[in-house]
Every structure is written in structure tokens, then in C-alpha cells.
């Protein structure tokens, strides 16, 4: 497993297959210019959530971004040095390039950016000591729902704006599970391990 192969797999599992907005593309270019060694990561970061996401939400979503990359690398059984490099580059990218943040107290729109809305609101709940299950299932949920998006993308014209609504119906169910699940301590270690590391089916 090489770092480049890992990036390809991350892109396949986590990134949106649809064309992203101009704002996100420009943000990716600026990130790559400022931090050329992390350009591969930068191109992943901008495709990690939704095609129409306002780029100002990227920094607010950074904890989830790190969680998704790190956990997926673990699921892919990437060697420790490669995982360490991934995390180091993510830190470097964040430190070198802090995108403009949004001062809005609102959340990303569920109807336009369902992935971002799910991750942002769930992480906020985790920060307030709720929805701890999110930390364990975030990557699994992201990968599975992204797979649904991959299934819909070829028929994008027929789905129209319902793609986001369809995705959110699944993410909403996941959010409910995170919010109302028993504490993590109630999950047996094997189940937690399975949720984090996967059984290999999605890989």
C-alpha cells in the first residue's frame, strides 16, 4: 500500500462523484498552491461533503474531516507510517491554510448539503457530550450513504434536486441513531471494533 494508492481509495469511498461548485474548486486550488505537498489531500477535502457546499464551512467541518480520513485509512488497513503521514499532512494543511470561516450561527442546509449538515450537527452534539456513537459510526455511515449517491449519480438528471433529499433521509436516520443510542460503554468491544474497522464488505 502506497500513500498514493491510499488517496485513490479514499477518493473512491469518501468523495462525491458529482461535479463540485466553482467556490470549492477555487478553494482547492488555493490550498494546493499554498501547500503543494498536501495537494492530494486538498483535492479530497473539497470533495468530501457535498457538491454545493459553501466553502466557508470547510474549516468548521475539520474535526469530522480528520475523523473520516483517519478511520477510513484504518478500515483500509493502511500501514501506520502511511496513516501518520496522512494525519501530519492534514494538520499541516489546516495550520498552513485556514480557509475563511463563516460567522453564521446556522448549520449547513440539510436540503442542499446533507453530508455537511449531518457531520456538522453530529460533531457539535459530540462536543456537547451527546451523540457519542457518531465517533464510532461516522465513517461507516459516510461510506454507505456515499455508495447510495454513486448509485444515483448516473441518473442525476432524473433525480434532480431529490438526490440531496434522498441522501438526507438516510443521514437523518443515522443522526437519530447517534442521538438516541445507548452510551458507547453499552456496546461490546467486538461491535465497536466492527463498526470502526468494518468487515471488509465496503472496501
Amino acid at each position: 500500500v502506497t500513500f498514493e494508492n491510499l488517496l485513490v481509495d479514499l477518493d473512491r469511498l469518501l468523495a462525491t462523484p458529482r461535479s463540485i461548485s466553482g467556490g470549492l474548486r477555487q478553494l482547492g486550488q488555493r490550498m494546493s498552491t499554498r501547500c503543494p505537498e498536501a495537494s492530494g489531500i486538498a483535492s479530497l477535502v473539497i470533495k468530501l461533503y457535498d457538491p454545493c457546499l459553501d466553502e466557508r464551512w470547510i474549516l468548521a467541518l475539520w474535526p469530522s474531516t480528520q475523523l473520516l480520513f483517519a478511520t477510513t485509512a484504518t478500515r483500509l488497513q493502511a500501514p501506520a507510517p502511511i496513516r501518520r503521514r496522512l494525519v501530519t499532512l492534514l494538520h499541516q494543511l489546516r495550520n498552513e491554510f485556514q480557509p475563511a470561516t463563516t460567522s453564521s450561527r446556522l448549520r449547513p442546509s440539510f436540503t442542499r448539503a446533507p453530508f455537511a449538515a449531518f457531520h456538522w450537527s453530529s460533531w457539535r452534539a459530540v462536543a456537547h457530550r451527546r451523540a457519542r456513537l457518531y465517533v464510532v459510526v461516522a465513517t461507516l455511515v459516510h461510506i454507505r450513504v456515499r455508495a447510495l449517491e454513486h448509485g444515483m449519480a448516473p441518473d442525476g438528471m432524473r433525480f434532480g434536486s431529490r438526490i440531496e433529499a434522498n441522501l438526507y433521509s438516510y443521514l437523518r436516520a443515522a443522526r437519530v441513531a447517534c442521538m438516541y443510542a445507548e452510551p458507547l460503554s453499552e456496546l461490546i468491544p467486538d461491535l465497536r471494533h466492527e463498526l470502526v474497522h468494518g468487515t471488509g464488505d465496503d472496501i
Partner: protein
Amino acid sequence: MALATTSELIRSALRNYRTQTGVSGSTAASYAARLRVVLGEQRHRIRPGSRSATRRASHPTAARVLAAIRQREDIGVSATRTRSRLHLPNAPPDAAREGEGAIDWVPAQFWTRSPAHARRAQWRKQHATMSRLAFQHDSRTAQLADYASAHSRLFSRAPRAITGDQRISTLIEGLAVVYGMTPSTLTTLTQGSGPRDDSDLVIDFREGRLWIRLPRVGYNNDTLSQACAEASRSGSDWASVPLVPYLRDVARLLHTQQEPAIMRSFAEVTRKIERRRLARLARSLPGWLTRCGLPGVLASLLTGDFDYTPYLATSAYINVSEQHVRMAHVSAFRCFEAQIAAECRRRAWTFASVLGPGMAPSLSGNRHFGSRIVPLTGRLQQAIQALETRRREARLGGSLTALARAWNLTAVYTWFRLSWAAALRPCRDPVVRRGDVEPETGWIFVRDKDSPFSRESRLVPLALRDAQLLERFAHDGDRVRVRLRAMTRTAMDQLADDAVFFLVVDGRARSLSAQLVRLVLQQEGLGDLFPWPLNAPRHYWLTRALELEMPIDQIEPFIGHSHEPLPWGSLSLVSLKRLSETMRRLGTILLREAGFRAE
């Protein structure tokens, strides 16, 4: 208990969710199905063939407006008006020549279908088919000869000539063949001079009057405000109707006996009567009376048993008078009795009418019963007039505050007008969406019921000028949206692109809801003039339709009370075009009655 599998995790989370929020089982079940996909091992693919997955396709106009905003263009000039509309296929020429319109050939997906009770639906369909093809015979339906036999046996002697238990038997069987009360309902009959807490069906022997408890559906009358009560017709949970003269005389003769003795005899006689034959006569009577012109809801009311009848919902909406019910019943029964008399003549059986020569109005007053939120017409006109006076033009060039207030009032007014024109439910979700209005033929596609148990959508006819008003309103809404997006910091993230009705409250654009309508009315100082729940137009509609003797059974499907057989069923012989004209005519009458100006 430790959770060992994903299924247990899902079950426990949703159990907690239901306990803490009280959501319905169907919502939890839909979440469970999705969680099995995102956490469990179930595989799924969302396909475009699924109607719910693709129904709301992206709207070209909205997309263009959004794109224009992003590019900071002059939106007012560049945004063209090519609103997508409901496209109905034309009726085939042969059908058109026979008077059918495009609406008669609407694609099947527009009509709701019952997903459950397939066998019952199949039976109903066959039954309705027989009925529509004028085959009235059905092994379960009592025929004219059965009624002729019963009438000849029961009513051919004068009440005074009947004695003892036979008098009681005549009353019991008379209630079955004149009002359609089944033996099981009659066993609950109690004696009293008015409503009683311990019974749903009371007979007043002295006055010769029946008291029938109405089912309570969806409303808690205790929570209605005093102001609402003062601005609405008086109502009651107890319906009452005087008995027809023959049965009234029998009841009065029985009244001379001791009360406990009557009821004891009642119980004994009821046991002796052949229930199966009587049940058949009683069960079939509402159908015969409906054919003779009695509105279905009144026919069901007089049976004393509303449970599980298709008119249960309608019964909660109407406010009628004792005299109205009595006259409607007598009129239909007279028509039915003429057929029975003809059958008796043919068979050389004796016949005597139970109605007597004439029906004088009751001397004991004309009490109103039923819904308590049917507005008094005078109060309603006063409120609508105040709302119309307060309306002003929403100027896009003015301040945001002025624009928001004027727009909110316009939206509320238009919503009121629409709900009085077509008896829509108070919206819980954008009830009318972009592209769902057909102003040239006067139809709208509404989705006004969105409960956990059902999602209902239907086509509703609308007077042409009201459909055009709605179209104009949607156009104005587009301009307001553009103004809000381009030149203000108003949050639009909670507003669906395809919502036609929206308000601007606290710096945020939101879909119209009952709470927001109330808020706007309060802000404009009109709150006190509108004390009724926003469902009041539906109550007024059905009540007035009954009073105006409109064919309520034909109107009900358009206002969302769909019960078999539907007028637009596959073998229907009725033209929807004609039905829609009835609906439009009633809408126009009621709009005028409520005090709305012609736009």
C-alpha cells in the same frame, strides 16, 4: 444490557427515540429500514423509478435564479418567466365529443391509491361497478320486496290498534327500517329526556325524539377559546331528530307505561326479534336513502352508529339543525316509500305511510348540533373585510421591514382566499408547490395532508380567477425571493425552492404555517378578528354545502374525504368536468358569502 449486534443497537436507539419524542411507529420503522442500510448488512440502491425519489425534480426557473444570484447579474432583467406547469394530456377526440375533459384522463399517479386492505378494496370495486352499471341487486342488500313486506306487516295497523309487546316490537323494527338502526345498535338504546353520560343513543318516549351522540374526531372542544365560541355557530356533541309521526305515536303510547317496565320489555322483545333479517334491512337502508337524495353523512348519522363508516370524518365537520336533518330524511324517505308503496300494490299487500299527511316544524325549537367552529357569516365578513382593507402593495424598492410586512400580509390573505375557495387543510408543509397550478383550466395539485399515517395528494378544481390569482402570487413571490437573496441578509436556508407560500419572520424566510399565520395576524392587529382554528373553512364548506343542498358526496373527494366508490373510478359514468363545475360554483358562492372581493 450490553449491545452485541448492529440490529440490537438500531432497535435500542429507536426505542429510546420513540419513548422520548413520541413519534409514530411508522416513522420509527422507516428509520429502522434506512439504518439497516447505513449501519447493517442490507444493501440498497435508490432507483429513479421510485416516485418519491424523483418527484420533485429541480426547477429550471429556480436553478436559473440561483445561478444568476451567484454570478451577481441583474436578476430582474435576466430571469425569464418559463414556469413549468402541470401538463395534463388531452382527452381523446371521441371522449372529448362526449363532454370529457383533460382532467378525466389524468394519469393514474395523480390519484391516491389505498395500499392496504386489497381484498376489501377489490370487493368494493366490484360492488361499486355493479352499482354504477345500475345493477342494484346484491345478495347482501335488502330489496324493495323485503321493505314492502316489513312495512305491510309493521305499519298497516294504527298505533292504537297494537297492544302489548307488539307495540314495542313495532317501535324497534320501525327504527331499523325507517332510520337504519341495526339490532346491535338498538341494544344500546336507553330511555331518557335528553343526552345521558352512560349512553350513546337515547330515546325520549314522551317527546318522540332520538338523541344520538356524535363521534369526536380530532377536536377537543374544551380547548376552543371563548372568542371562537362567540364568533361561531352553537354546536353540540349530541344530534337529535324527532321520530316520524307513526313511530312518535307508538313511542307516546308506550310512555304511558311505567319506565322500568318499558325498558325491561324492550330487552325481552329485542331478544325475540329475528336479528339477521332485521340487520339486513337496517344495513341496506342508508344506501337506499342515499339513492333517494339523502346525503350520505346524514344517512349514517341517523343509523346511530358512525364507527367505521366512510362519513366519520365528514360528521366532525358539519353543523346542522334538527329541522334540517328531519326534513332531509323525510324527503328522501318519502321518495323511498313511494317505491315501497308501488311494490305493495303489485303484490296486493296493504300499505300505510309512516310519514303521515304533512310534517309540521317541531314546536320544541330548532337546535343546532355538530361542529363548534363554523364561523358566523357576519363575523367572518367583518374579519375578511378588515384583512382586505389592511392589504397593501409589496414594494420591492422599499425597506426590508416594509416589504416583509406587506408581503406577509399578502401571503396570509392569499392563503385565506385559497383555503376558502377550495377548502384546503391548514398547511403543515408547502401545500401548493411551484408548477402545481394550472391557471388556464383552473386546477391545482395539492398535498395538504401529511400525517405519519398517510400522505394525501389530489387535484382540486379552482375558479379560474382564483387560479390566476395564485399564479400571480407565485410570480410576485419569485420577485420577493430574488430581492431577499440579492440585497438583504435574510436567511433562506429553511425555505424550499418550490414552496409558493412563504413569510419573512425574524430575518428568515419560512414556509407558511398555521403558527406563522397567527403571528402575522397578531402583528397586524387582526388576531382578535380571526379566533377560529385555520380549519374553519372546511367546516363552513361542508355545512353550507349541506344547507345549499349541493351534492356533498360529489364534493367530498375534492376536499380530501375519499371514500369508495370514488367519482373518478375507472368505471365511473360521471364526468369529472361536471363535478368540478359543481365544486367551482360552490367555491365562488362561499367566497362571496365570506366577504372576499372579486379580484
